[in-house]
């Protein structure tokens, strides 16, 4: 479809849309969720269903030498016991780079190697050795307690720096030392090989460290960088190091799965997914030796995924194959539930961050060199180069010389994943570069952002060209969000040099800013054959039905799709139906993953629905014209009526009255010209978001207790256009509050002597409560600058990543001392010389 067909909205005011951007449209999932009717995976109950659990390993590293399950089997109520040495358990170890998985797991990969039910645990709480099904959960717990195991307890390592040292325990002892094959030239998100002339490889661990535990090493070689010259040209050079400890997603819903075998040998499963389910089904297919068409999947509501459930995540997703085997053994449906204690998964930003920055007195930065060493990070460090190192500076700044290296180590911890979102490390690097340069020069971060960020970062020429060609507004959005944030927070009046503002209440006032500019790949919506081929809209009973399988994780994507389909077809929004889907995988279509940046912003899936809605409308008009004996060019559909195009007040017929004629008209994405949604010049068919935001945080630090109190937060986002304003506000609140929580107070703590987690519960692992963050103001700007439908730019995932970077920066502004993440009282008091 030529661009001219769909840029009709360029001259249109936001108010001119009928459903786009309109307030007061109730979310399609609101009633289910408010009334308690919404069925989550945890709530599924089938007739005759058994409950089950896998033994959680009490050790951080251990192997089962022998196991006696006879007592457990005898306990009344126990229906099936599955052991690691049972013949039906697939013994194979699957690894991230498993070639068998590559064809299915197209865009993501494993976070950790795994088996169906192994004899070896690589972290405390790992499902290992034995799974038991019984008719009630208390019997399961008792039976697990009756299993007698002789363990070979093995050496473990929890600290990523220790894991890098010579002589450190080899965490995954069956894996060979890592060979650095993932090396990125970040310019076009294309991997470089050693044959590439721009490639320059320097082994990070040569002669010193333990390469056995290296999971990945990523080099960021921005073309045309001359680091030496960049630093030589700078007025000033600074170097800094900071650390972030482990933190957790702690999704509300405790992972669970339900498996039932049906007569034809098919496996029916109930499990929430965020991404298209088939990607994970591919893994299950190999693990269970069951062809894909034998899976029937139901996707109930999911209680808080935050991106993490888009990948196959051990141990959360590993419980399904175990449930399936138990169900077969017991000849009954089995519901497998993890314990809260064991359902914790690391965020991927634990690590040590070091940077060297060359900068001039006018605020321009000449060169940044980053070195990161991270723990257990999901493979994304190698799959998605934006995630660590100077990735954000490459994609969203004009800094001319950038280079970095990030190394990820295996440690004896549970799987890491990207929760809101994978770019946490890169965001922290960028925020510290800007904040520290700003503090050194006595200005705020806004000045540094404006001095260093062009209208876009490196490598986005084709986006800019596209925008120019299509008359998409070229506004100075970065300045606009900074100004709006400053105005709303009174920033310029309150801002001060670090450590210089003592309030009458005896506390130190601290304030800082994250001006953020995110040009990013919002999801390769058309890259995935399943996604592309399997969404459709149909006319049934005079209404439009959207048919697409979608895992719901709360981002309210469905209402967004409904808005787009109503807007483009001319139907009243109440005549566009999209019920929550719980259906079999091979009979129903899928959409691309339901992510914060990728779908709420509607730059990805939104395009898909835009394309099929416009296609369907053409078919509806053609049919209606025939039925009404009009020319297709002279009629239109407005508010569910077929009207005369030049006089919409003349209703020719309600669409409902043409129900018989229109019945069954369908538009699929497959037959639509989705290729045209791609930006010319783009290296991958993908949706792009290009949103800008300014998050401002104001804290008070008690110098006598080290307590940090959030007093005010302002979040400004230029989203281009807010397709669903209330939903966008929800995303903004969510990003800010979750970010300030993870970066401000959250920390997973391990016993150094055993590697056992000490606080994986909601009493000892603390997330912010309502009174802890009483004032958050969300401000939406709509410049219409985006390349998405209607000028949509997205409400970027990087709100969270930057907010989670911000609290220590505010503490620095308050106290004049830098504190590591999270800035809890012991760290603050220590930095102040009081502990």
């Amino acid at each position, binding site marked *: 479809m030529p661009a001219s067909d769909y840029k009709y909205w360029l001259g249109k005011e936001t108010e001119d849309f009928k459903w786009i951007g309109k307030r007061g449209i109730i979310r399609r999932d609101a009633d289910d969720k408010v009334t308690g009717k919404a069925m989550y995976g945890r709530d599924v109950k089938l007739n005759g269903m058994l409950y089950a659990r896998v033994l959680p390993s*009490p050790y951080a590293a251990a192997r089962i030498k022998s196991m006696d399950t006879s007592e457990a089997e005898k306990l009344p109520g126990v229906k099936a016991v599955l052991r690691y040495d049972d013949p039906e358990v697939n013994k194979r170890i699957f690894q991230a780079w498993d070639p068998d998985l590559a064809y299915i797991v197209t865009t993501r990969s494993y976070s950790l190697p795994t088996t169906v039910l192994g004899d070896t645990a690589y972290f405390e709480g790992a499902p290992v050795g034995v799974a038991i099904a019984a008719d009630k959960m*208390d019997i399961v*717990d*008792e039976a697990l*307690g009756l299993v007698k195991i002789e363990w070979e307890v093995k050496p473990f390592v*929890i*600290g990523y720096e220790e894991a890098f040292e010579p002589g450190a325990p080899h965490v995954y002892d069956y894996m060979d030392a890592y060979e650095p094959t993932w090396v990125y030239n970040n310019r076009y998100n294309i991997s470089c090989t050693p044959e590439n002339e721009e490639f320059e490889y320097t082994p990070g661990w040569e002669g010193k460290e333990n390469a056995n535990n290296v999971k990945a090493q990523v080099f960021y070689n921005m073309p045309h960088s001359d680091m030496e010259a960049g630093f030589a040209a700078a007025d000033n050079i600074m170097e800094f190091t900071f650390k972030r*400890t482990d933190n957790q997603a702690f999704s509300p819903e405790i992972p669970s799965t339900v498996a039932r075998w049906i007569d034809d040998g098919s496996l029916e499963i109930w499990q929430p997914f965020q991404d298209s389910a088939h990607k994970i089904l591919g893994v299950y297919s190999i693990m269970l030796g069951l062809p894909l068409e034998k899976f029937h999947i139901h996707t109930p509501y999911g209680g808080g995924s935050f991106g993490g459930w888009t990948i196959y995540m051990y141990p959360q997703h590993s419980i399904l194959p175990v449930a399936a085997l138990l169900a077969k053994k017991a000849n009954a449906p089995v519901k497998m539930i993890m*314990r809260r*204690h064991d359902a914790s998964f690391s965020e991927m930003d634990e690590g040590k961050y070091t940077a060297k920055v060359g900068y001039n007195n006018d605020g321009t930065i000449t060169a940044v060199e980053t070195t990161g060493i991270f723990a257990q990070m999901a493979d994304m460090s190698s799959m998605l180069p934006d995630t660590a190192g100077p990735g954000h500076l490459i994609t969203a700044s004009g800094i001319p010389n950038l280079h970095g290296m990030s190394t990820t180590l295996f440690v004896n911890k549970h799987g890491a994943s990207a929760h809101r979102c994978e770019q946490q490390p890169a965001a922290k690097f960028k925020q510290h570069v800007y904040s520290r340069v700003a503090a050194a020069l006595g200005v705020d971060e806004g000045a540094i952002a404006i001095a260093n960020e062009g209208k876009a970062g490196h490598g986005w020429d084709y986006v800019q060209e596209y925008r120019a060609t299509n008359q998409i507004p070229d506004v100075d959005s970065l300045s606009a969000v900074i100004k709006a944030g400053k105005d709303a927070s009174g920033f310029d009046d309150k801002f001060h040099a670090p450590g210089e503002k003592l309030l009458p209440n005896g506390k130190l006032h601290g304030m800082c800013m994250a001006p953020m500019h995110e040009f990013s790949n919002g999801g390769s919506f058309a890259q995935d054959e399943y996604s592309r081929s399997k969404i459709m809209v149909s006319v049934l009973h005079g209404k439009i039905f959207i048919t697409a399988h979608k895992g719901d994780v709360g981002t309210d994507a469905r209402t967004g799709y409904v808005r787009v389909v109503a807007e483009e077809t001319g139907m009243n929004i109440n005549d566009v139906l999209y019920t929550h889907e719980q259906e079999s995988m091979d009979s129903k279509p899928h959409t691309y993953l339901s992510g914060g940046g990728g779908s709420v912003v509607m730059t990805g899936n939104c395009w898909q629905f835009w394309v099929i809605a416009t296609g369907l409308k053409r078919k509806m008009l053609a049919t209606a014209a025939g039925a009404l004996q009009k020319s297709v060019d002279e009629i239109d559909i407005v508010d569910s009526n077929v009207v005369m195009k030049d006089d919409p007040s003349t209703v020719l017929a309600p669409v409902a009255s043409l129900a018989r004629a229109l019945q069954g008209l369908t538009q699929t994405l497959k037959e639509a010209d989705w290729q045209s949604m791609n930006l010319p010049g783009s290296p991958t068919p993908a949706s792009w978001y290009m949103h800008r935001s300014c998050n401002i945080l104001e804290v008070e630090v008690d110098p*006598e*207790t*080290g*307590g940090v109190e959030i007093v005010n937060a302002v979040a400004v986002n230029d989203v281009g256009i807010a397709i669903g304003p209330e939903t966008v506000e929800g995303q903004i609140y969510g990003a800010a509050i979750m970010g300030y929580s993870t970066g401000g*107070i959250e920390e997973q*703590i*391990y*016993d*150094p*002597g*055993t590697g*056992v987690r*000490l*606080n994986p519960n*909601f*009493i*000892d692992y*603390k997330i*912010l*409560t309502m*009174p*802890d963050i009483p004032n958050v103001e969300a401000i939406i700007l709509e410049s219409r600058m985006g390349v998405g439908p209607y000028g949509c730019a997205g409400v970027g995932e990087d709100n969270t990543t930057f907010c989670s970077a911000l609290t220590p920066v505010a503490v620095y502004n308050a106290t004049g001392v830098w504190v590591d993440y999270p800035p*809890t*009282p*012991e*760290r603050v*008091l*220590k930095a102040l010389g*009081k*502990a």
Partner: protein
Amino acid sequence: MKRFLHVDATTVEEASEALAKGGAMAIAGGTDALGTLKDNILPDYTEVVVNLKTIEGLDYIKEEGGMLKIGALTLLDEIAHSDVVSSKYTALAQAASRTASVHLREMGTIGGNICQMNRCWYFRNPDNKFNCLRKGGGMCYAMMGDNRFHSIFGAVKACIAVNPSDTAPALVALNATIVTSKRDIAADDFWDVGIPGSTVLDEDEIVTEIQIPEPAGKSAFIKFAIRKTIDFPVVNCAAMVGGGEARICLNAVYNLPVRATTAEEAMAGATIDEANAEAAGEAAVTGASGFPANGSNPGNKYKIQIAKTLVKRTILACQ
């Protein structure tokens, strides 16, 4: 949660009798008891749970004979919102209102709050992974492990867990008496380092009432925690200063609530002002050492600074 048997006690005697058989655990609000059972933290799983809520007449707040009497089954929320407690026994009302979360205050009782077991994360780790001293084991894992929230005044019986109660220091500062099914115990003497309990109570002994004499001066309670709600204290402090007397008590800094006796002597009869309060704060942490940072363990020396500050602020709040 694994299975156990259950008895509804209708009188104190019935409850004592049921508890005397051993292997039993008393339950009132249940917010602590069920946590220990769900996580299966003790070496011997409880065999029978004895419900105290079915005992009538232990739920009251009244002034009688110049003293405040609170039934052991009185909800923390009722204490927090009681006019008489707030006006005269302020520290206790403040402590009750800062305990746990709003929901838990409407479930948890004062009796349960003062009898709760410690919150050491080794002690509480599910499935008794650390069979520590408080479970009859041979060592304190926190001593060599991560002790950022542990004692700053050393160990009692080699255990460095802290008493986590918010109401305990208020009761000590207010010179309360704990009435049980067997005896009257001064708040000063009520807490202990048992296996696994945290009080001097016998296995079959039940708290029935709290008695508090009318305080000579004003009292106050201040809690420092990471969050404004839900959390157990990092450090808390209660004080009663006035009428020539001073009773100051820190908690969550030691296995037992800690009377700051030197500070009390200094403040008895002294003017409540910044300088005196500050000196009292310094005096209160004399002898506190804490644990140094070690690897991933940041240690807990920071708690000394917080304790000092809270003593100062609590005294000032008694003005």
